[in-house]
């Protein structure tokens, strides 16, 4: 492998992904870190901090919490390095297995897809753990033609990795279906081989999945987990199966594919599929057809898993970014050859439309979106005062009220005593905890647990108790969130119709600060002058 080429690939990936290091906090990221903090401080997940993700989601964030102590910039740097390593790893793997161009294009396509997800869709488990898919690809390719005796350990490891991946998000377990179908179609083996292979794989899978559920050994945690699963049932079903709901899902998903994945990448995917069909007679573990075929099966299974979830959020499709980027690597390579051939023609009636099409595809590719994302590090480093303005769009999305979050954080930081506690009440803006420095006593990651349509009595009691314990309360007033609450009331509107909670707040708290989207309450006493 040529060192200069590797350096070029690395530098390009580092450059493209760089904006991630300056991304703003997001709600899910804050929830992961609060979960990790609960664990590190000796608390129990689903008991002391309740959210809807599997246990491994919070445990896997413990190292990040320990390094960063929820400092957003450090977390984002860690995220940046994870994505860089994934993209570079992908590029080098394909450089070795196929060729440099495919490796380079894949790494660049992956980097562009990740960085243009932008906030609030960045830092999701699917993205962070995408490197597991590369490991699955490498292992599956290596053991494809080997005897079971010689590859027992690797099969077990493959199962364990899939088990871990499944434990992060259960629907991603469909990757197994992709692998199974690929093996059935392309492995020329007897039934007994498949039986042994998949029994070993299942052993690794089950062991790993069970290890990921180890925290549930604790009785309290287990009961909390059961309560959460019951709540999750409503969350999962918030998108119905009726025609209007499916219509909404298909609209979101179509928009994701056309807008975020982009027209240019759709066309590149078509180029890759045509290439794959052309090479259908040349299947062998040593050639590009193998990688391309395996990627098509994995991408299909992972996209299917996102479709099954029926949410249509962009980050749900990011689980398929590794196999899709491989497909894109081949496709972009083919597309470049196609356009080069057209441009070789000296006829005006060919070159002009070709140039127009290239420009069109360039504009409707993640590259143009990347230039918009590139503003983030520029503003962060050279015009920091306007940094929060970049993300402030509450009219488009209630949780993008970053200017207000910053103001509230600054107010609390300058008007509070050490040792005071804060309670946050919102549905989707949990990142407010990263803007202030007090101890967070939240038991719930969002207000849907006590103001949603499917709450538990004990959760409501816990919430009322928390109201009595807090020194500061931060309430969002514009955060209608149907997926969390199963209604369109904001947290503040729900609070206003809750006479018990209002009585506690009115008797114990004063509203001391407000922005357009957030109210801040403090225990009845004089607000201090800035001392800290």
């Amino acid at each position: 492998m040529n060192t200069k080429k590797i350096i070029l690939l690395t530098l390009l990936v580092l450059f493209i992904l760089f904006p991630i290091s300056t991304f703003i906090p997001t709600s899910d990221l804050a929830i992961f870190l609060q979960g990790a903090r609960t664990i590190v401080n000796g608390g129990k997940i689903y008991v002391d901090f309740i959210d809807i993700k599997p246990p491994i989601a919070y445990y896997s964030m413990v190292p990040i919490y320990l390094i960063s102590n929820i400092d957003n910039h450090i977390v984002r740097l860690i995220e940046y390095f994870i994505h860089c390593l994934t993209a570079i790893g992908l590029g080098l793997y394909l450089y070795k297995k196929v060729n440099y161009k495919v490796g380079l294009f894949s790494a660049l396509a992956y980097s562009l897809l990740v960085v243009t997800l932008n906030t609030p869709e960045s830092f999701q488990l699917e993205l962070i753990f995408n490197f597991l898919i590369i490991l699955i690809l490498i292992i599956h390719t290596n053991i494809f033609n080997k005897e079971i005796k010689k590859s027992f350990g690797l099969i077990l490891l493959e199962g364990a990795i899939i088990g871990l991946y499944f434990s992060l998000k259960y629907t991603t377990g469909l990757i197994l279906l992709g692998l199974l179908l690929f093996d059935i179609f392309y492995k020329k083996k007897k039934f007994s081989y498949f039986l042994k292979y998949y029994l070993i794989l299942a052993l690794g899978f089950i062991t790993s999945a069970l290890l990921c559920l180890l925290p549930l050994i604790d009785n309290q945690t287990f009961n909390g987990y059961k309560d959460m699963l019951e709540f999750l049932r409503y969350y999962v079903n918030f998108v119905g199966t009726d025609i209007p709901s499916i219509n909404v899902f298909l609209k979101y998903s179509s928009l994701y594919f056309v807008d975020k994945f982009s027209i240019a990448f759709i066309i590149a995917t078509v180029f890759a599929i045509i290439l794959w069909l052309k090479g259908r007679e040349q299947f062998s573990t040593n050639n590009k057809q193998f990688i391309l075929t395996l990627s098509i099966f994995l991408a299909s299974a992972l996209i299917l898993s996102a479709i099954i979830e029926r949410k249509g959020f962009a980050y749900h499709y990011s689980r398929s970014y590794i196999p899709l980027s491989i497909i894109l690597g081949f496709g972009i390579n083919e597309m470049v050859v196609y356009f080069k051939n057209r441009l070789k023609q000296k006829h005006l009636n060919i070159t002009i439309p070709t140039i127009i099409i290239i420009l069109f595809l360039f504009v409707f590719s993640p590259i143009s979106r990347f230039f918009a994302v590139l503003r983030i590090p520029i503003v962060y480093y050279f015009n920091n005062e306007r940094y929060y303005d970049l993300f402030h769009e509450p009219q488009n999305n209630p949780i993008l009220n970053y200017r207000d979050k910053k103001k509230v954080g600054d107010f609390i930081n300058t008007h509070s005593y050490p040792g005071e506690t804060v309670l946050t009440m919102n549905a989707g803006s949990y990142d407010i905890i990263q803007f202030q420095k007090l101890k967070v006593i939240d038991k719930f990651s969002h207000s849907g647990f006590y103001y949603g349509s499917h709450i538990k009595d004990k959760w409501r009691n816990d919430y009322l108790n928390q109201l009595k314990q807090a020194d500061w309360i931060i309430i969002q007033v514009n955060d209608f969130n149907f997926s969390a609450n199963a209604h369109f009331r904001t947290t503040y509107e729900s609070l206003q119709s809750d006479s018990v909670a209002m009585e506690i707040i009115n008797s114990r708290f004063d509203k001391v600060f407000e922005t357009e989207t957030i109210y801040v309450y403090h225990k009845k006493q004089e607000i201090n002058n800035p001392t800290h």
Partner: protein
Amino acid sequence: MKAHHYILFVISIAFILSPVIFFPPSEIQTKYMTEGIAILQGNFQSLHNTSDLSLLSKIVYGGIGIISNTNSFTARIIEFFIHLLTAIALFFLVKKYLTKSKAVLASIIYVLSIVLLNYKFSFQIEPLSNILIIALIALHLKRDNINSEGHINTNYSLGNYLSLLLEGLIIGLILFLKFNFVFLIIGILAYDILFLNINWQKIIKKYGTILAGFIIFAALYLFILKIERFPNAIASLFQSITIPHISFTFIRDFLKDFAKFLAYIYSVLFIIALFYSILNWLKNLENYSKDIKSMRLFGISFYLAIAIILSFVLYQDFQFNHIASLFIPFCILISDGLVEIYHKFINVWGISKFSYKFVLVMFVCFLLLFSPLHFWIYYMQYPFIYLIFHNYAVLI
């Protein structure tokens, strides 16, 4: 095609288009018809100098308003027939230059696109004017007698001049309906210069005749307005327009909105078909003389589409209804793309192993899921809601 085939074809596209009849009335529709009727009845006080509609457009809406007696259901029926007629005209245009199957598909895609525009936008002047774009393409292609080397013949016959004049008249009609359509002229000019490589002398000769047609239309129109004693006729000839310029904020928003249009109306399947057709056309241009007729239709569709997209950017005015001006060129290209993809699919299917067939079926399922089919099924609720509930509130 036999007579019963035509009948079946018309019934099919009428069925696909049927939700249009049951679309709820839109605010714009009522406003335009009221304004138009007032003007036709001589109430010129409602004639504002600055409006988002040109005088001729208002007259068209007024005409529909009078025929329908401002009944929104009857107005929707008139709208339905205009779109149906456009789809049939598109069928004959595509059939002449491509194949019957592509022509049928182009009409189906056109009526699907109209339904997917939905009730707020389907009755706007852009979709209603699409029949004129078909006429423009038909006339422009008809005149160009291309020789076997792909070059335009030098001698114009009387018939050529008459068709150029007619083209000028249609351009006049289009421009007075909406001035933004001026970019269509840039499209056909780009087609003549960049695609057909016509030299400047011939361009001047050709466009001089078109200009004469335009002047005849403008003179006739102004003459009628004069006779009818329209006040401020000149000032209200065109809708209020912005001077074309570049704004990066608009371009950013436009890119998002344009992607949204493509996603909501054409979805993934039709976008693939659109680009498949364009890229295939570019490839086939290397053997230009092979299929001159189809190459020309794709050429003019391509340049018209580019000119229309350019007009969105330069006028800084982009609403969902504006996109309807792209329907004719896009339907031509998408129908070609779909048929070509289908042929490739059949070829590959015949010689592939089961594993490849399995993946192909998977792709087909994915593309059908992300095709406009589901959106159309969604809009098929309208007839039932209208007939059963008599109340569109259930949709909200």
